[in-house]
């Protein structure tokens, strides 16, 4: 009866399958379900297969809990009951890792410090507070101007090794100023302007040779030291002098040879080492500070092929001389002070003096001492050195005797301007402060006179040279010499003669034949 009157479809059987399997189907529905399954092979196999799956699962899942877990549970329950609800909560906490969620509303009553630190908001907050604290402390420590100045003061304080380096810039500055003033004066003689390096390097070393107002004084000092050199061993200074003088600006001197009278001031003559020793502290100041001087020093010590090192080494080579022999420097300085006290005024205000003072371990003295008022007048001699030297350099090879003449004339002229005293060291030295201005005025006058004399000597020398070149038939050189003379002195009484000779020389150059009449 059921097979033909089965009201249930397969979909309805599927919907009720779970309820049937687990006995949750109402009695009426269950009867209908069973009737359908009895007549339907497909639904019957479905019920059987699912029943087998349930049976298989139950055989595996039927498992008793471990006995130790049971004992632990009962023990914890007894302890909790004996201690009360609060301890029960603590025991529950200690019994295992407490999950956050559970069906009941039980939660830990109070979080520990660690839990509080592990909170989501705790770490960012603490990190922010720490960063702000570091920022505030850092700004207070490092951004406070007074603190920074206090910190920077010792760093900028003069150190024994930092003095020469600091004074080097000062020295260069002064040398450049002197070079500018000298080049302005030399413009009228149309001499080739020395380069900045040449102007910075040789001024003091060549100053005595150029007939500057301080030249005679330096020579007198040299003579004094020469006399002292009998007692004092001059061995270290003698070999050093030529190398120091062989710097950029002194190259012409080296090429002058023995016949060059200027070489006598440098070291070719037997008395030269002592003369140069008289200026060795000044020269040393240059050579150790200036690139060219240091280069010359290195060139003497370095092997052949060591030239590329020169540009890097001058300061490095100069430092050891200060560091290794501070006592020698102190002695030299003391001797120089004695000499300066004995010598004439222009010696002190020369541009080198501050540099020497800067080399001292206490450079603040040099910086604190204001330059003497006569310094501008006394400064030109060192800077004026390159141009005459360059002028002489052109004909040094041709006529050493002619070139020597003007320099000796310079010296005699400068001596004569001071009353002919070769070494005018007064027996009683006035106080330095008051004598300085008088000396400076005298030095200024000497400087002007010597410059005028020097210019006249140079012009005369150029005329002689031009005539000689013309006589020797060196037309090109003669033409250049006459042209220079005409440029310098276009209104000279001899200008007409120079023009004629210039034209004749040019004609000879053009025709490659001597002029008809010389």
């Amino acid at each position: 009866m059921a097979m033909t009157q089965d009201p249930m479809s397969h979909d309805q059987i599927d919907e009720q399958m779970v309820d049937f399997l687990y006995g949750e189907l109402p009695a009426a529905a269950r009867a209908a379900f069973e009737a359908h399954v009895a007549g339907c092979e497909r639904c019957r196999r479905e019920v059987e297969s699912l029943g087998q799956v349930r049976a298989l699962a139950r055989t595996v899942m039927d498992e008793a809990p471990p006995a130790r877990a049971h004992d632990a549970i009962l023990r914890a329950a007894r302890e909790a009951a004996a201690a009360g609800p609060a301890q029960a909560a603590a025991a529950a906490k200690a019994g295992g890792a407490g999950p956050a969620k559970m069906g009941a509303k039980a939660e830990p009553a109070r979080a520990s410090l660690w839990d509080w630190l592990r909170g989501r908001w705790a770490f960012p907050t603490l990190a922010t507070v720490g960063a702000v604290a570091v920022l505030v402390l850092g700004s207070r420590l490092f951004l406070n101007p007074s603190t920074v100045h206090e910190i920077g003061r010792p760093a900028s304080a003069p150190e024994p090794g930092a003095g020469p380096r600091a004074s080097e810039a000062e020295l260069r500055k002064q040398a450049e100023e002197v070079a500018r003033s000298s080049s302005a004066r030399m413009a009228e003689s149309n001499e080739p302007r020395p380069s900045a390096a040449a102007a910075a390097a040789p001024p003091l070393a060549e100053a005595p040779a150029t007939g500057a107002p301080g030249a005679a004084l330096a020579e007198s000092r040299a003579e004094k030291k020469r006399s002292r050199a009998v007692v004092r061993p001059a061995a270290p200074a003698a070999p050093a002098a030529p190398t120091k003088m062989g710097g950029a600006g002194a190259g012409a001197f080296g090429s002058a040879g023995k016949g060059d009278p200027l070489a006598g001031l440098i070291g070719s003559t037997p008395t030269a080492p002592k003369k140069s020793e008289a200026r060795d502290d000044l020269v040393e100041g240059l050579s150790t500070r200036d690139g060219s001087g240091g280069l010359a020093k290195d060139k003497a010590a370095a092997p052949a092929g060591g030239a590329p090192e020169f540009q890097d080494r001058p300061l490095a080579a100069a430092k050891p001389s200060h560091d290794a022999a501070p006592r020698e420097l102190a002695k030299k300085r003391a001797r120089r002070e004695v000499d300066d006290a004995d010598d004439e005024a222009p010696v002190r205000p020369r541009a080198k003096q501050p540099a020497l003072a800067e080399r001292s371990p206490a450079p603040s003295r040099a910086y604190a001492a204001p330059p003497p008022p006569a310094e501008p007048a006394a400064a030109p001699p060192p800077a004026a050195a390159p141009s005459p030297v360059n002028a002489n350099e052109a004909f040094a090879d041709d006529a050493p005797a002619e070139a020597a003449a003007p320099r000796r004339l310079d010296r005699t002229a400068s001596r004569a301007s001071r009353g002919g005293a070769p070494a005018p060291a007064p027996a009683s030295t006035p106080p330095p402060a008051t004598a300085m201005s008088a000396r400076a005025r005298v030095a200024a006058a000497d400087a002007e006179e010597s410059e005028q004399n020097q210019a006249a000597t140079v012009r005369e020398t150029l005329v002689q040279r031009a005539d000689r070149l013309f006589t020797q038939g060196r037309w090109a050189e003669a033409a250049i010499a006459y042209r220079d003379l005409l440029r310098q002195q276009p209104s000279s009484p001899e200008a007409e003669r120079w023009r004629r000779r210039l034209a004749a020389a040019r004609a000879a150059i053009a025709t490659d034949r001597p002029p008809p009449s010389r």
Partner: protein
Amino acid sequence: MSAYQAGDVRAFERLVARHEKPVWMFLRRFTRDAVAAEDLLQEVFLRVVKSAGEWKRTAKFSTWVYAIARNLCIDQSRRAVHRQAQSLDGPLKAGGDATETLHDRIPAVQSGADDRLSDRQAAARIDAAIAELPDDQREVFLMREVMEMSFAEIAAVVGASEPTVKSRMRYALGKLREALTDLRDAPAARAGVAESAGSG
């Protein structure tokens, strides 16, 4: 539970004896880790002790306890994601048979007995098939099979409708049937069919 609330420790022992095994079976299959299941079992009843004062007579104790067990399982599975602890009974993940467990690789003490070996292999396959069920289907299956909760109770615990729970149960049974097709002819399965046909 009311007796335990009144201070009767024996009443709690009776509660443990009654619900310990279903809870254990649920935890054991849900976590697929015997050690973790043991810890959770103690935790469940410690929570019961701790929260005994909050239980109300209107609530069914079994449902309350099973809800605690389920929530602990969910928390544990979340922590296990980070720990990546490997269970002896859990399926091996990288390489090898998906149904093979670490337990299977350990030589059996009595490996000579073929029937026991086949039983162990069948049990491992069934374990693996249950473990492969999706969580929502597995928890419904386990609640129904081992905890013997009604679909209405399961729906209340998992927070789903009763038809949804039944649907999940239907899908779970279908997947298990597919996974255990060759085992359904075993004597245990045949015996279970007659038993489960009318029991529920």
